[in-house]
């Protein structure tokens, strides 16, 4: 399974998000590849789940991949709950 974390440039907050998701997956014993992307890279590439901040909602309307929107990029509980739910639904 491939999961992409997004931010505007693709290496700042998305990188932190990627590391948080990797920690969570490790704790849960789930195997998945996590990438950090910029918003512009979303189209034309395939992943199973996209994790993005809430304020990117309108930019992602035409994207058909499963999207997880986060209110707080720093809230580990929120990330864990939403990402694990998405993984369950996708697998």
């Amino acid at each position, binding site marked *: 399974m491939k999961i992409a974390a997004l*931010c*505007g*440039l*693709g*290496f*700042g*907050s998305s*990188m*932190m998000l990627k*590391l948080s998701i990797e920690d969570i997956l490790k704790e849960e014993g789930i195997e998945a590849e996590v990438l*950090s992307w*910029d*918003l*512009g890279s979303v189209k034309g590439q395939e992943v199973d789940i996209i994790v993005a*901040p*809430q*304020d*990117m909602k*309108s*930019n992602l309307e035409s994207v058909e991949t499963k999207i997880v929107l*986060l*209110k*707080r*990029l*720093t809230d580990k509980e929120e990330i864990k709950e939403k990402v694990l739910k998405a993984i369950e639904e996708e697998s």
Partner: protein
Amino acid sequence: MSDILVELIAMPAVVLGIIALIGLIAQGKKVQAIVLGTVKTVLGVLIMNLGIDGVIGAIEPIQQMYEEGITPILPDFQAFVTFDEGVVGAVQSADVGQIGAAIAWTMLFGYIIHILLARITPFKFLYLTGHMIWIHAGAFAILFHSFGLSLFWTVALASIVDGIYMTVAPAIAQPVIRKITGQDDFGFAHGQTLLNLLAAWVGKLIGDPEDTAEKLKVPEGLNFFRDMAISISVIMIFVSLLGALLAVGQIGVEAFMEEISDGQSWFVFALFQALYFTAGVLVLLQGVRMLIGEIVPAFKGIGERLIPGSKPALDVPVIFPYAPNSLVIGLIGGTVGQFIAIPILALIGWPVALPSMIAAFFASGAGAIFGNATGGKRGAFAGGFIWCFVGWFLISFAYRFEVFGDLSALGASGLGFTVPDAIVPGIFIWLIAKLFGA
């Protein structure tokens, strides 16, 4: 053999590869991951170099158009692009006088000093914004290099300043970050700190935090600016076409085709220079992404182990969700700020930084969020405006007086620094060096 080794180790790409290698080994990664990560880091540097060539290749004719168009009216006119990644990337890739390796070593030793300082001082933040770690290491290394110091002293002094910067900046931003987020579990790590704090201070003077911008209704239509490819294209097409019109107005279509566009029509030429610029930036950013992709996780892992109770200091977008309206107000305020500062700079004969969407969105956006936290909607607009208005003077000052030395001689022609956290300490150190006759 040893010559080859010495030559290899002096390559900036190899130094960064070595830093990644150490980081990957220290994290206890498997052999395959270590090899992959090291190669990717080296490739990242090379990809970045390709992007730099594209960016500079596109800037030169755009600069030329402005100079042809405006110098007949204002003889001192000079235009440049303000773009931190561009400056550090170009200097690192041209690697004049071992500066590329100095930047890479400063990145490593600056971070080690940061970890030591965070361990022994009460400032328990771990600075984790990868491109900003690299940019500040670059800015300080370039600064000390410009005084003619040896590689050793350049790296030593730049690392100390860099380490202090990364430790202190998140701590001084934290009181406002607490107001913005209502929590205290992460800090702020971006080169914008000083102007953001100015925005917060002005916000406090002129507004009321209760009158928050977040209660307003703000149109969502400006959201497409979040996509870098679009926002850079839009602003650069505007900048490039305006430059072409000015040049055509002064020298006429034929001279334009002869001197600037190599026979292409002015419209097509200007349009595609803007798009080449954007394409170059996107390639460059991809390189930066790979360059820091392996190093930042290592810094994080090691730092967390060595600094008990540390808080991560994170990149600016982590505060965006707390104040989306302020972000949009900042974008507007910042654009206004740039468009007022630019003619003033041109009239007083200072070099002009061409408009930047990255600054208007990321920097003025954050300035507005800081301003809103202390001064509500008035603070938000003022914060966004001030960031770019004052910022443009700082950026121009550093470029005009060559605070960081002669950047074009180092390979970064037509490029200048943006972030105040590099420019302001840079100006102080530059002034001190001047006093001592360096």
